């Protein structure tokens, strides 16, 4: 076991997969000599050569599109979007070509698109978004979003071994702030499986990525200040998400909050809330609450961004509102 940052865990996972399978290669803007805007692939070009660590022109559609083509010819590409925000430029290749290909003609498209996402880093409207919901609506894609170093390594490895296009949302705020123990051996975290990060009996918070952290902090305080026992469920995978685990937990606690950092309307939380009311209505003792960012672009200036983002205090407020039912 080594204690590493969330970023180092991703890097470890990528490196291990590169060593394990010579068909795996990395492609993206400035990922080679520079090692990536966030240094996730630092040193890779020296170790694996420029044929397997490819710097590209500024062409997000191009990056995703060559991943599709090369995946069909037997490689397992891992693309890096320099920031998740730029994935919009490659939207067509993902949602129309990659996502529909296996359905249309039965060929697998094993590819991963890594998306450094999330706010709290004062990146402004174009370097802070959490665009997972854009893709949540697309059959054929998978979406994962880890909250811990252990899950980050296990999920990137699972994503690379998956035979479908997988979007890997890695949160920039967590990159160097979150550390944890990560085995040096080979392991994967299966896609589609969530995990209870904190056991509780009075309410469930269903979260992923950064939201897991402020949910855990708020849960701790609820226990201490209010004597309310909160269960925190980390989805880890967003598409598909772990419906079984959600039902298990909600049937036990009878109260649910869905939390994510992406904006509220049309977000993943809405679908999960609908799923819970459809399948566990008779167990509920209150409305399924959602906590998310405000429905605006991500603002730049610190006070504006702080107001926009969900956080521990907003989480506490939501928990108390629900506890009152």
């Amino acid at each position: 076991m080594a204690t590493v940052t969330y970023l180092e865990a991703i890097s470890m996972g990528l490196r291990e997969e590169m060593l394990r399978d010579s068909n795996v290669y990395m492609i993206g803007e400035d990922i080679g000599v520079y090692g990536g805007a966030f240094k996730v692939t630092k040193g890779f070009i020296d170790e694996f050569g420029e044929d397997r660590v490819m710097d590209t022109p500024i062409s997000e559609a191009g990056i995703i599109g060559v991943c599709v083509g090369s995946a069909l010819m037997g490689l397992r590409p891992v693309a890096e979007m320099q920031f998740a925000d730029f994935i919009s430029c490659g939207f067509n290749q993902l949602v129309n070509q990659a996502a529909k290909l296996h359905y249309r003609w039965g060929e697998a498209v094993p590819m991963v698109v890594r998306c450094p996402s999330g706010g709290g880093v004062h990146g402004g409207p174009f370097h802070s978004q959490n665009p997972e919901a854009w893709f949540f609506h697309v059959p054929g894609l998978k979406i994962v979003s880890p909250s811990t170093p252990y899950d980050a390594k296990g999920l990137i490895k699972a994503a690379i071994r998956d035979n479908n296009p997988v979007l890997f949302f890695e949160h920039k705020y967590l990159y160097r702030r979150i550390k944890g123990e990560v085995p040096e051996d080979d392991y994967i975290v299966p896609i589609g499986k969530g995990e209870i990060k904190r056991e509780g009996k009075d309410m469930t918070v269903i979260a992923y990525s950064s939201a897991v952290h402020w949910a855990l902090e708020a849960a701790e305080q609820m226990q201490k200040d209010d004597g309310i026992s909160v269960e925190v469920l980390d989805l880890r995978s967003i598409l598909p998400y772990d419906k079984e685990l959600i039902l298990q937990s909600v049937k036990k606690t009878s109260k649910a909050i869905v939390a994510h950092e992406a904006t509220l309307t049309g977000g993943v939380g809405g679908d999960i809330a609908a799923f819970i009311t459809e399948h566990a209505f008779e167990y509920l003792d209150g409305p399924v609450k959602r906590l998310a960012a405000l429905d605006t672009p991500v603002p730049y200036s610190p006070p504006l961004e702080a107001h926009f983002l969900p956080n521990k205090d907003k989480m506490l407020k939501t928990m108390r509102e629900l506890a009152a039912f």
Partner: protein
Amino acid sequence: MATKKKLNKKPVKSKPAKTQSAAAAARNRQEKTFLRAADLDLEKFEPTNEQKKDLYYYLLLNRAFDDRVAKLYRQGKIIGAAYGSRGQEATSVGSTYALGKDDIVGPIIRNAGSIIVRGLPVKNFLSNFVGRSTTPTRGRDGNSHLGDLELGVFAPISHLGSLVINLAGCALAFKIKKQPRVALTYIGDGGTSTAEFHEGMNMAAVWKLPFVCIIENNNWAYSTPTSHQNLTPDLAVKGKAYGIEAIVMDGNDVMEAYRVSKYAIEKARAGNGPILIESKTMRMKGHAEHDDAFYVPKEQFAEWQKKDPIIRCEKYLLDHRVITAQENEAIKARVAKEMEDAEEFALNAPFPNSGDGVTGVYAD
């Protein structure tokens, strides 16, 4: 204005003067914005007589296939729209026929000929126009939207320009895996206006990929003339911007399409980077069967009818005694019979069960 003059001027035939050094000749070639077939030494790419017969057969089958689709469309038997390639058969057939067995082609909507040349039986191909289960898509997609890696066919999507990137991606895999394979795809004059065309061409150029892209300049993008897509009459000039070789060919001459494509494919295979070919041709019908092409001047159709690729090929083969009149009739009869059987097969093939469409969204 010197550049502009150069652009519009018909490039000089490439026979270098005897006094010109090889280096000077090479420089001269480099300075040209694009080459024409006549500038290239294509003698060694001349198809054999057997290959010429093959090319003719495929042209006829491509035409007969389209005619059959049009007929079935009017009878209300085609599901959805019916897109054809009338007038452009020589480009698809000549270029795809120039590929090797392990190469891959990404046909778009006017390249039925490519799919036929790669060996998909016309009965299964036609099944895809009538939504049956006897096609590579099993009814999940229609018309010429199909792919089959066994045949080396990469399925298109409707979004133009996308395949340029995808086939560049195939070529990237060939380069990484050090395989002597080439990827070929097509784009229309209208499709060159897309961002994805640009991104794909640029990446292929920068990485010197074994990739050939053929722009089929058929004068019309649905109802929009090429002049409303591009200010330059010759789309091959785009090659210069990517720093790659670009060639203009007569897209209605199947022999030239074969020779030029073969030259480009083998050059790309040898590691010289991608080549852009502009095929000058004409879409002889509307965008699809529902479009009567009222906006195309009658004179333009009449002018291009004289260059019909099938009539030209037939005349060439008879004049050069590659085939006899009897053989010609035999080939035509064979094609007619194949299409007759294909229709019989496709219209009697089963539709997929309604529940079949819920599987296969994800690969295992």
